[in-house]
């Protein structure tokens, strides 16, 4: 009795897990200087997984494989690639952090990063709510540990907070899964869709499920009011981990959100889009306003991340290919900007985690013009000013929301963007127009600069030539099931 297994769409995860296990054993058994080997193993895993993912772009088999657990559509491919890109950059940043401070370093960083990545690539392809939950836990547990890995007080505290609140939100999600099962008798997302289509009358249970699932995933994407953990965790976690998780977690959780809601609960979209719109509105406003009051760059970027979650949710209110495409574009653009900006945060001074306050940015242009220019680019993009990717992304999601009739939400988004522009411009002013007060030196290490260059290139290219990825994003927005 051998089941018919098509493992091809699952190869990226298999590769990542294999690399992670190799790394784990190596960490346990090897002695002496270990980071080059760790880095090589992890990089190999990510590169091979990316290759395997890329090959899936033209996958012609069933929409779901492995007993309906894994979806094979292009959404899964594109989101996986984005996650893997983020993981690649996170790896570079993490390696640099270890080189800089070998005493506080843990070799477990590498396998944990790979496990987290596995959870993320799995969740974007998960076609069964149980698998979604499983992947959610894999990525969350890995991230909890990654957050607290350095063992500093702030990191441990952030890790514990993240864990407690994460467990809380997982409970909501799990409850939602149970409700879906109660309403439809299945946890497979395509079957949920079929069960809900054409059903008339009482949908209360399914709606309750939708709300609970939205809460669970809303926590992961740091949508307000489920965002409270974000500033503390982003600030407390090592900057390399923050960079990785701010981008990759968002991509992963949003891809899952898209699959669960736009496939599974498509029939109920008139009922859940107002919920998404409400979350979007609260996130956009709270994120933008609270970012203003921050004096720490990492906290500021954390609130900005909340606002950006709101913008992406704005695109999803359309619940059609336009909206999904716009949100996917936004996710790619946001990943590049946020990784880039956190990478800059990591090397602004040689003192790493000690100096993430805004004062460290005074006169950065004088100290390190390239770094200041890159940071300015990321901030301008976060603010949504042309000709950067952030501008195109915002135009896309607002357009989608207006097309779906959520004019007020788009308007609110524009207003919030204007308010938030102050946040970003303030840093730019500090960097370019203020004289440095202290003798700080930026970190000249090459690895973070590579990540920064990658981010900057993506932000610029997507801003100047959005047409290059329009086709990819649009074909990924067409969901197959």
């Amino acid at each position: 009795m051998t089941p018919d297994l098509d493992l091809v769409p699952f190869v990226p995860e298999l590769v990542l897990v294999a690399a992670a296990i190799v790394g784990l054993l190596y960490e346990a058994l090897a002695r002496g200087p270990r980071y080059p080997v760790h880095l090589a193993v992890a990089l190999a895993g990510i590169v091979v997984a990316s290759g395997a993912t890329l090959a899936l772009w033209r996958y012609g088999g069933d929409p779901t494989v492995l007993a309906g657990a894994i979806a094979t559509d292009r959404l899964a491919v594109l989101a996986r690639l984005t996650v893997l890109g983020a993981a690649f950059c996170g790896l570079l940043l993490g390696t640099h952090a270890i080189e800089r401070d070998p005493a506080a370093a843990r070799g477990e960083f590498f396998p944990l990063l790979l496990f987290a990545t596995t959870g993320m690539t799995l969740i974007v392809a998960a076609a069964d709510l149980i698998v979604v939950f499983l992947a959610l836990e894999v990525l969350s547990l890995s991230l909890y540990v990654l957050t607290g890995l350095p063992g500093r007080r702030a990191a441990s505290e952030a890790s514990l907070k993240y864990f407690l609140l994460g467990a809380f939100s997982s409970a909501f999600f799990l409850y939602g899964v149970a409700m879906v099962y109660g309403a439809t008798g299945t946890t497979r997302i395509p079957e949920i869709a079929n069960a809900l289509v054409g059903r008339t009358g009482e949908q209360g249970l399914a709606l309750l499920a939708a709300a609970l699932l939205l809460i669970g995933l809303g926590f992961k994407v740091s949508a307000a009011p489920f965002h409270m953990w974000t500033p503390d965790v982003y600030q407390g976690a090592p900057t390399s981990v923050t960079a990785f998780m701010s981008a990759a977690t968002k991509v992963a959780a949003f891809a899952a959100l898209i699959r669960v809601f736009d496939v599974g609960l498509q029939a109920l979209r008139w009922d859940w889009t107002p919920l998404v719109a409400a979350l979007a509105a609260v996130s956009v406003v709270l994120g933008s306003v609270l970012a203003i009051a921050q004096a720490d760059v990492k906290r500021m970027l954390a609130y900005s991340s909340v606002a950006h979650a709101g913008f992406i949710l704005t695109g999803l209110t359309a619940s059609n290919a336009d909206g999904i495409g716009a949100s996917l574009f936004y996710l790619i653009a946001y990943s590049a900007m946020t990784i880039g900006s956190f990478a800059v945060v990591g090397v602004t001074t040689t003192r790493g985690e000690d100096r993430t306050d805004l004062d460290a940015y005074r006169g950065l242009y004088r100290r390190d013009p390239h770094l200041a220019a890159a940071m300015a680019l990321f901030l301008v993009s976060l603010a949504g000013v042309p000709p950067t990717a952030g501008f195109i992304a915002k135009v896309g999601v607002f357009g989608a929301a207006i097309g779906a009739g959520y004019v007020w939400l788009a308007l609110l988004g524009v207003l919030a963007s204007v308010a938030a522009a102050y946040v970003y411009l303030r840093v730019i002013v500090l960097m370019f127009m203020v004289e440095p007060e202290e003798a700080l030196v930026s970190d000249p290490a090459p690895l973070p600069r590579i990540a920064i260059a990658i981010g900057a290139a993506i932000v610029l290219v997507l801003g100047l030539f959005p047409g290059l990825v329009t086709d990819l994003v649009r074909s990924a927005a067409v969901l197959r099931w």
Partner: protein
Amino acid sequence: MVGAELTSAAVTPTLGLLWLVPALPLAAAAVNLFWGRRLKRAAGWLASAAVGAAFVLSALVVAELFRLPAQERLFVQHLFDWIRVGAFRVGADLRLDALSATMILVVTGVGTLIHVYAVGYMEGDPRFGRFFAYLNLFVGAMLLLVLGGNYLLLYVGWEGVGLCSYLLIGFWFEEVANANAAKKAFVTTRIGDTAMLVGLAFIVWRFGTLDFDPVLGRAGATLTEGAATAIALLLLGGAIGKSAQVPLHVWLPDAMAGPTPVSALIHAATMVTAGVYLVVRSAPIFEASPVALPIVLVVGLVTMLYAGTSALAQTDIKRVLAYSTISQLGYMFMAAGMRAYAAAMFLLVAHAFYKALLFLGAGSVIHGMHGEQDLRAMGGLLRRMPVTSATTLVGVAALAGVPPLAAFFAKDQILEIANHTGRPLVWALGSLGALVSALYVGRLAALAFLGRARSRAAERAHESPPTMALPLVALAVGAAAAGALNVVPEGRLAHLLEPVVGAVPHGEGIPAWALSTLGGLIAVVGLAATWVVYASGRVDHEMLAARLEPIPRMLGAGWYVDAAYERFVQAPTLAAARFIAGVLDARGVDGLVHAIAGGVVGIARIGRRIQTGFVRSYALVFLFGAIALLVLVGARS
């Protein structure tokens, strides 16, 4: 207008190289921007080589294009989809036809010579590499402007050119005057650009696309007269700004604050010709309106006379040339206003040669005299700077319209068309303008090169290095021979351009030979008169000028237009700004802003109070949020 009926040619290996024409200067700009300092002198050669290679490529591509039959001389290279929002799409398309072919040859050809010249001229400047990066960017943007297959790409190039002009005019920003000139150029052209942007929005609204083919092909059929007039005038606004036509001309005389190669590039090859190109390219839109072309004609005519007379009384050698450029551009607009597009383009090409030559010659003079720009301090340079003087004198003769040099044919044809299409007044004023040009350029030559040296600097002037002299010689040959392109109105260039811009208008009037003879006479007489007044020593020209006061002073100040702008536009604007800033803004708007900001900060403070750092309060907020969401669900179901 038959442009839209051209059929697009298939890609051949040579035509496929078209994208490299703008890409090469842009790539070189990027290299110089990042590594210019390290490259040192090589930066200049790299920049020159990039533009030179672009010129060679342009020549190859254009030759390939002209090998095709006349109605197939169009090649559109689709690089990628640039923007796609729903049904609206803009491609990154390069469009090569006779019009853009002419432009790219001029831009890259003259541009190359200016680059080589600049290697000598900028020697020793601390920001040598940076300068060449901007110069390359300038040329690249201009190439993008003329090669763009749609209005948006054209606009990108347009803005790029504007940005580069700002950077280059203010290149020596250590002097406040230079920085101010740069700002003036940027702000003034910006006024036109805004009009143009509105025009583009109109086009999108009316046509749903910005591609040249559908817009220009259907302009006559789609647009009502009112709409055509609106779009044409808005586009004209952009052209007036960029081409320094009255009333937005004020930036160009100041723009010579930049290093001389920049002036040459702005005046000859890039920037200012963009306006003429835009009008010629958009001709179908202008023709669909009953009033647009007459307005173009009037603008050109006024500008031509205004700037020509202003040039008569300038004392700064570069300012003479700047006003001269404005005047010549007025000529081009005049021609375009009479539908004589080919004649406008012919003058554009010819002008590119002799104006580049004159500017580089002037630069060489300034270089040789260690920065002296005042004509009154020069004199007798012919003996001390023979190559510079001889070549510049060729440019002078060419500009004045001495047969058989470039402007003789070009100007003559515009006047002939004016005469033959029943516009005697235009013809008469145009002829007057021709006389004025001969006078101001003759004055420049006489004061600078002839007579005796009037200062120590003039006595000690020395010839410039070969990198500066060689481009002068090349340009002199071009200025002398450019007339051969189009000896009669329906000549070779007009014939080549005909598929794009339509046939040359013609009719009856005074016989062409008579007009030409008159034109030649005007040039010779004008030059001779200036020689008598300024160089022969028989007339005390300073006395003469003093007796004519206040006319020379008025002309020297550009008819007080700048002063009037200062008095009636700038001062009231500043006063209004001060009022708004001091009273309205401080009390009203700022009060409001502070109130809002206070509110935001207040909210942020409350937010911080909630963000206590305690997990239990976080979980509580989470719970409240969840309950609110569930209530929302309950309320809806």
